[in-house]
């Protein structure tokens, strides 16, 4: 039997190269990459205070994109919030890609969207709805099932855009954004599709259950100033700020992208998804270390080849320390590797987190700026890392490769490496 690791390396190098040629997003602090990036470099967080059913006011990241830009009002009414997020992001990504949509064979297009969870919002809404009618289930909406099937966000995209290729979601807790991109890259390499819309999406702020769950776990972030509630690596961090959002990319095989003269934003260089197999909520730094190292190996890179590490850190007491432990293990003797975090600006966008956090760093390939992690008033010594970019952006000589970490409950770890196109 062939050595598995040798096989992995050979598979990676012999398979088609996959590139990013389009991107659409909505984040709490921006509805385009340009707006999002400008706010990340300017240190502008945007976190609102919302009234959560049964729980009162809590900080949350709220997106303000115009859903009617790409949907009829009836579509919005009959669909889900995350469906609208997905359609907005996919449509914006299509525009960004320069694809001539009328000439695209829609049966060769796939939609692969990462989600942390789905269906909780609609289920909670209907439980509340029938509670107004003596819990009589004849008042339960007939829209419930199409809204709550797990493929809903991706399926809404296909209906809106007339895509007849495969679509489904990838349930991967908070590693989902990376998982969506990885799934798409794999399907492109297999030749299952020619174009993929992939990334991650979340509507989680509309379910009280996730707020209550984190609160009762002692992991729900709070601060009198909502924009400071999400503060990874800060000594006084106190938990997660829940946010909604989405980021969807257009992925293609490199040869196809070159043939149509596409603008290539970045190349997918390597990835890994593994599992802790230890605890449902407490991350395992050993497995995270293995995940990052495997992604590097598959990319044919050394830790020194990475200029930016986009951390997953969510501002929980233990989770941040665990990730820092893993990163210190991998990135020893890497003076040119910078480390940042996006959740300090926008909170935790759950299924969208990994995809959004990668997006905000992609312009670094062109401008060589590294956005910081903000809201650090007193750095937790246990989170100290030499390359951590604190509160202010830094200019670097070059950015050729970005490592994007995304981890999730039940011990799912994902590491995705993208590189500047044209760099060996």
């Amino acid at each position: 039997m062939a050595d598995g690791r040798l096989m992995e390396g050979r598979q990676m190098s012999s398979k088609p190269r996959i590139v990013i040629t389009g991107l659409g997003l909505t984040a709490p602090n921006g509805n385009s990459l340009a707006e999002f990036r400008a706010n990340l470099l300017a240190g502008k967080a945007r976190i609102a205070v919302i009234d959560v059913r049964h729980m009162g006011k809590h900080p949350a990241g709220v997106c303000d994109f115009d859903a009617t830009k790409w949907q009829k009002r009836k579509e919005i009414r009959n669909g889900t919030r995350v469906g609208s997020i997905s359609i907005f992001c996919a449509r914006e990504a299509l525009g960004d890609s320069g694809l001539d949509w009328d000439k695209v064979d829609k049966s060769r297009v796939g939609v692969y969207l990462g989600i942390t969870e789905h269906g909780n919002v609609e289920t909670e809404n209907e439980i509340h709805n029938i509670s107004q009618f003596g819990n009589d289930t004849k008042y339960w909406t007939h829209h419930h099932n199409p809204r709550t099937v797990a493929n809903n966000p991706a399926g809404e995209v296909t209906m809106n855009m007339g895509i007849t290729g495969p679509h489904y979601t990838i349930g991967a807790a908070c590693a989902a954004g990376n998982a969506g991109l990885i799934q798409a890259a794999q399907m492109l390499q297999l030749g299952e599709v020619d174009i993929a819309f992939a990334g991650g999406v979340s509507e989680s702020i509309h379910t009280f259950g996730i707020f209550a769950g984190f609160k009762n776990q002692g992991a729900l972030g709070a601060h009198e100033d909502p924009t400071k509630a999400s503060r990874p690596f800060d000594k006084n961090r106190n938990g997660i700020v829940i946010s909604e959002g989405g980021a969807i990319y257009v992925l293609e095989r490199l040869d196809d992208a070159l043939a149509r003269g596409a603008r290539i934003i970045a190349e997918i260089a390597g990835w890994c998804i593994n599992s802790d197999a230890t605890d449902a909520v407490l991350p395992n730094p050993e497995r995270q270390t293995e995940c990052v190292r495997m992604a590097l190996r598959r990319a044919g890179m050394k830790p020194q080849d990475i200029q930016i590490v986009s951390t997953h850190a969510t501002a929980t007491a233990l989770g941040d320390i665990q990730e820092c432990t893993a990163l210190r293990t991998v990135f020893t003797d890497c003076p040119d590797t910078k480390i940042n975090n996006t959740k300090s600006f926008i909170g935790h966008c759950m299924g969208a987190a990994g995809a959004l956090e990668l997006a905000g760093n992609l312009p670094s390939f062109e401008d060589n700026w590294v956005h910081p992690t903000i809201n650090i008033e007193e750095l937790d010594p246990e989170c100290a890392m030499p390359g951590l970019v604190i509160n202010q952006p830094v200019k670097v000589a070059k950015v050729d490769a970005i490592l994007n970490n995304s981890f999730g409950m039940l011990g799912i770890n994902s590491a995705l490496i993208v590189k500047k196109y044209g760099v060996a």
Partner: protein
Amino acid sequence: MTKDDIKQVVLDIIADIAPDEDLTAVKPEVRLRDQLSLDSMDFLDIVMELRKKHGIEVPEADYVQLASLDSCANYLLPKFEAKGK
């Protein structure tokens, strides 16, 4: 409640469930599906809203009675009257 009142009740529901539709020139004698973009889920919405807002039950066998505004008015009038409306 008159038949015209009931037609307005139905139009108000349609305005909510199909907000993109122009309802200013709906012909009462013409099937709603022939002049508006409504599907089976939308008619289920009409049934649900009649139930939630007015306490009116429309059995599945009678869904055909909701085909046009005129048929809605004819079918629903005794039900509204039975409710004392």
